[in-house]
């Protein structure tokens, strides 16, 4: 056992060293080869320099492009192909998977829940993040507060699921509650509830976990944006007698709309991809299924690559508008 562990770690370290070394060796050797093939001297020095200059960027890019192509571009194309084939990915079935998808109850439930997540989580995280940023920026101990609110970002979704089980746990009314939420409810005179199985509300419980994780992200970015606002605009508003409330909503927020949009869309994309939380808390039972977990379900339990790919492509389609917007933004910035 101990030998196995040591061997495994040595293997990992070895892989890292080999990986790094292979990278350096490739870049070094390919650049040397290029210089040797087109030497920057002799009669054709000028032409050689130009040719080498045209090839060199592609030597630098080749490994990355290969990785991107194989691991991200090829799967998109292959998924379209798979979605038109049967469970084992062999026989052409045309639009059968898509027809099935349109009529599937679990898929509709997932779409409804994803819509709910899309409406609630980005909005709540961004608003709470904005509030946290605005408030902590005014305090001397603000950085410590920020650090603590930001902390859940380092926690895995599955770890967060365990953490929140201690919040949502349910015991019958005649026993002591060990879940914090029910303890608060009982303390306030209410009856304890099994939150995780309580339809519709259980979705809110799951969303709370993601909001808890993402608020820190929103706060950090929005805080930097708030600090980047030119002092003059704020001073002018104060001289004009603006209250702190007006100052924040009428002067500061309008100036950081761009950043708010970035935060909002980043969290939106995360929401579409999140599956660990649902998997660990309910596994899609009690009306909490979401697309990403539905896909996982069809891949592992259903063993149906056609249907799973169709669900994955729906996620892709939902992400595409944001993708295009991001690309436009990036291009505008490059110019």
């Amino acid at each position, binding site marked *: 056992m101990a030998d196995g562990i040591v061997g495994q770690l040595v293997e990992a370290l070895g892989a890292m060293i080999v990986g790094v070394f292979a990278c350096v060796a490739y870049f070094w050797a390919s650049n040397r080869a290029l210089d040797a093939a087109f030497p920057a001297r002799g009669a054709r020095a000028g032409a050689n320099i130009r040719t080498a200059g045209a090839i060199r960027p592609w030597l630098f890019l080749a490994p990355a492009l290969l990785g991107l192509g194989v691991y991200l571009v090829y799967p998109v194309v292959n*998924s379209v192909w798979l979605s038109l084939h049967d469970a084992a990915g062999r026989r052409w079935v045309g639009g059968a998977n898509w027809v099935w998808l349109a009529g599937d109850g679990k898929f509709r439930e997932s779409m409804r829940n994803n819509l709910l997540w899309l409406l609630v989580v980005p909005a709540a995280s961004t608003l709470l993040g904005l509030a946290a940023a605005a408030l902590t920026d005014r305090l001397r101990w603000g950085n410590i507060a920020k650090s603590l609110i930001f902390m859940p970002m380092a*926690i895995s979704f599955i770890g967060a699921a365990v953490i929140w089980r201690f919040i949502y746990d349910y015991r019958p009314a005649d026993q002591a509650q060990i879940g914090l939420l029910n303890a608060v409810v009982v303390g306030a005179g209410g009856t304890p509830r099994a939150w995780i199985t309580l339809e519709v509300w259980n979705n809110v419980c799951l969303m709370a976990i993601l909001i808890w994780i993402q608020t820190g992200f929103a706060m950090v970015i929005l805080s930097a944006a708030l600090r980047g606002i030119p002092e003059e605009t704020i001073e002018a508003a104060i001289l004009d007698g603006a209250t702190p409330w007006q100052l924040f909503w009428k002067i500061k927020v309008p100036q950081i709309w761009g950043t708010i949009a970035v*935060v909002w869309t980043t969290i939106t994309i995360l929401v579409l991809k999140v599956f660990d939380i649902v998997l660990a808390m309910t596994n899609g039972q009690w009306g909490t299924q979401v697309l990403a977990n539905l896909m996982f379900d069809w891949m592992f339990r259903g063993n149906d690559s056609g249907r799973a790919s169709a669900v994955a492509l729906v996620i*892709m389609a939902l992400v595409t508008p944001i*993708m295009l917007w*991001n690309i436009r933004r990036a291009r505008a910035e490059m110019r």
Partner: protein
Amino acid sequence: MEGIAGTRARLTWAVNIAVVLLVLLWTIPTAGLLISSFRDRDQIAVSGWWTALAWSERNAQFRAAPPSEAVEEGGLWVIEGNLLAGRPGEIRAFGINVNRPTEFAPGATATLPAGQRVTVHADGRYRIEHDAQPAGGSGQRLFAATLSPPRFTVENYGTVLTSAGLGRSFVNTLTVTVPATVIPILVAAFAAYALAWMEFPGRALIVAAVVGLLVVPLQLALIPLLQLHNALGIGKSYLGIWLAHTGFGLPLAIYLLRTYIAGLPREVIESARVDGATDFQIFLRIVLPLSFPALASFAIFQFLWVWNDLLVATVFLGNSEAQLVMTGRLRELLGSRGGEWEILAASAFVSIAVPLAVFFGLQKFLVRGLLAGSVKGG
């Protein structure tokens, strides 16, 4: 001016209170987990972690010493002992019937159907008097409500690291994470330099493609790549998951590094070119060392993401003892030992301890990376 100063002071108070509330709300869940992981398994199941410092009361069943230990004492046969068996605590009430476990107050004497008299004291001492020498194999069943003091233990951690298999999973996670964090950096850095400082046709298109690929859902990549890995003979192996994480991490790596490298001062790179340095030399000697903050940012992102990932590990690694990572193990524990809170709590804390340490230790780089990745566009 007085009025404004007064408003200011009140506002500062309100802000302080609001932030304290916010911080409490955000740290309490994790604090609950941490406290729970150090609690005794009996206490964790009957009381909330917020009562960890208070005494807890619970009903339990005990068995007195067997009849063979009875001693004669003035014509009576007596069995004596202590229900708490040396543990600190207090008996609040006791009973002789399972339906009425708290019928008698400590110190009172209960009479069993067969005529024996039972007395249990608050400190746990009990005395059973028989009129004749008792026979039989097992001791008398007794019930009691016990009040026990808070107990904290590191036993849970010992259990999860050894028998629950988390120790092995820790090593497996480390095996996945280290190469998967380091390898993409260099690949991406070369590409980022080319995209930032070399002129060639199609450059803008590639940058746009990288930005687009940033958001491709991983779900899409799972089936095609698993099939590809199987076809190549890599199958479910560490090599497979290193490659997968490298591929998935590339868009963010290239994007972050390109943004940073493009922002390096033009004069530094131009003057090196004038001095006759090749692009390869410029990259290795100037760009790479100057880009250290960006490299660190990405490394932290990738480390946290790979360490915390469940999806890619589930798909590209197996469930064997030598391959199950910590997130996978936690998921398994949630299913098989969902009721064993102390195991869950300690396991979860072991799995989040390293990311938390990285987070608090290297937060500066993490924040810088986040800002480079998002604010630029704002």
